């Protein structure tokens, strides 16, 4: 019991344990501080893959990725030999349900050096001295890799919007007009140098 000091129960008139949590509500209780939460105030964390096959929203199902740990390299004597701080994550790119086909293809192309014969993408990290931080680093690397592929794909597949197309067309026409104008001017200049002008 929280208000117990050295084994003595303070308020024995308080009923069963459940009453401990039934509340005193002051003027600053959390519900009145945040009465109507607007949806923009709460950050949206992705809970499933994105609908757009070219886009990656940051969602990685950690249960479907194999995590293993081993000893790190480098100096350190007995400690580095015993402590499993190196984190390795691996998953099969072909059978990954959370990646679209386009992303899988691009990932295989760009990170072929990290993929083995069976198609497992393997990422390891021994960046820090802590295992859980190294695991976070592995996921960070994976997330960055997939984001880069997704950005590349989005850039390649973007369609210019009609206003921009029209603007570019007008610019091109103007440039052509100027070019022809200059050509005519130059031609007149050369003509004026002729003997029988």
């Amino acid at each position: 019991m929280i208000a117990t000091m050295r084994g003595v129960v303070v308020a024995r008139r308080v009923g069963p344990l459940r009453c401990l949590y039934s509340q005193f509500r002051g003027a600053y209780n959390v519900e009145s501080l945040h009465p109507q939460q607007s949806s923009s105030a709460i950050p949206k964390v992705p809970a499933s893959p994105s609908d757009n096959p070219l886009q990656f929203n940051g969602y990685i199902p950690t249960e479907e990725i194999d995590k293993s740990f081993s000893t790190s390299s480098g100096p350190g004597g007995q400690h580095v030999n015993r402590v499993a701080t190196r984190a390795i994550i691996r998953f099969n790119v072909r059978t990954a349900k959370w990646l679209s086909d386009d992303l899988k293809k691009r990932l295989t192309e760009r990170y072929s050096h990290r993929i083995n014969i069976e198609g497992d993408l393997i990422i390891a990290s021994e960046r820090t001295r802590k295992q859980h931080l190294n695991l976070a680093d592995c996921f960070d690397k994976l997330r960055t890799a997939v984001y880069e592929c997704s950005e590349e794909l989005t850039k390649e597949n973007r369609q210019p919007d009609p206003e921009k197309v029209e603007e570019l067309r007008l610019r091109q026409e103007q440039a052509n007009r100027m070019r022809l104008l200059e050509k005519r001017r130059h031609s007149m200049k050369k003509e004026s140098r002729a003997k029988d002008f």
Partner: protein
Amino acid sequence: MGSKSATERALNYLRRAPRVTLTDVRDNPGARTKGRLVRKKDNMAGQQYNDLRGAGKPPLGWIWGDFYKPWQRIYPGATFFNQDINLRREYPPLSLLELQRLIDLGWLDPSLPIDLTALCNTRQYRCDPSLRQFGVQLTDEGASVFAAKVNLEGASVFAAKVNLEVQWASETAIAAVERAGGVVTTAYYDPIALTAAVDPLKWFEKGEPIPRRHSPPADLIGYYTDARHRGYLASPPAVEAARSELALKIGYALPDRTDDAQHDMLAARKDPLQVFFGLAPGWVVNLADQTLLKPKNPRLLHYYSGRLDASKDS
């Protein structure tokens, strides 16, 4: 359009780059730093024949005694540096390793919420408000496994499912507790409320009413309203979103919360004005008769409920 290989990109760069000169071969600034040179005066520093021989060098300002009263705290005349030395807040650390040890050895009961009062009652942790200490700081030492070549699922990670209320917590410490199925909240205690929380017996023996907690100072409001720190003033939906985000970031699956037996305990939170679970501010605890004395005067009720408008008379 496929991506170019690294070799191709490197050759393209070389084609366009200007001639390589000696200045290109030089180190970038800050690439190499000279190590600190050990000078003759550093060795022993003239302390061969007294108690300091062989010991580590003491902290700056240490003048015989404990380490909480260095010279610059006793005589804070320096204004160029350390001017605010006596205003700085301290949070004595509590590692996850220590917390697990306390639970395993029976000092703490994980079936009840663990807050500053519970920790101080064990007498294994100390927090002294008179030394500008403001509460528990949860550190992540002990979050990882220690045995070599062991799979995460089978190893000894921080595994206790606790409802923890601390005053400061690092991100990885929060992740370790939530991964085990527990809950962390960071809450602010002002110095008077802290004095009561740290030693409730002593406070009750004084016969003074339980204080109401005041709001955090301006420079801490940002910390305690942030869901990423699991602040007690942050909105619960934002805290839920931050939980999912942290799980994605660190790389663990959030455990199911279908165990209803512990649901009430894990969902328990103190009101921002409350110091003890089950007791409201303003109540006087009578230890001799084992009773509670609750105020009836509207002015007192108004004050202890935390309202800001002018107190009503009678």
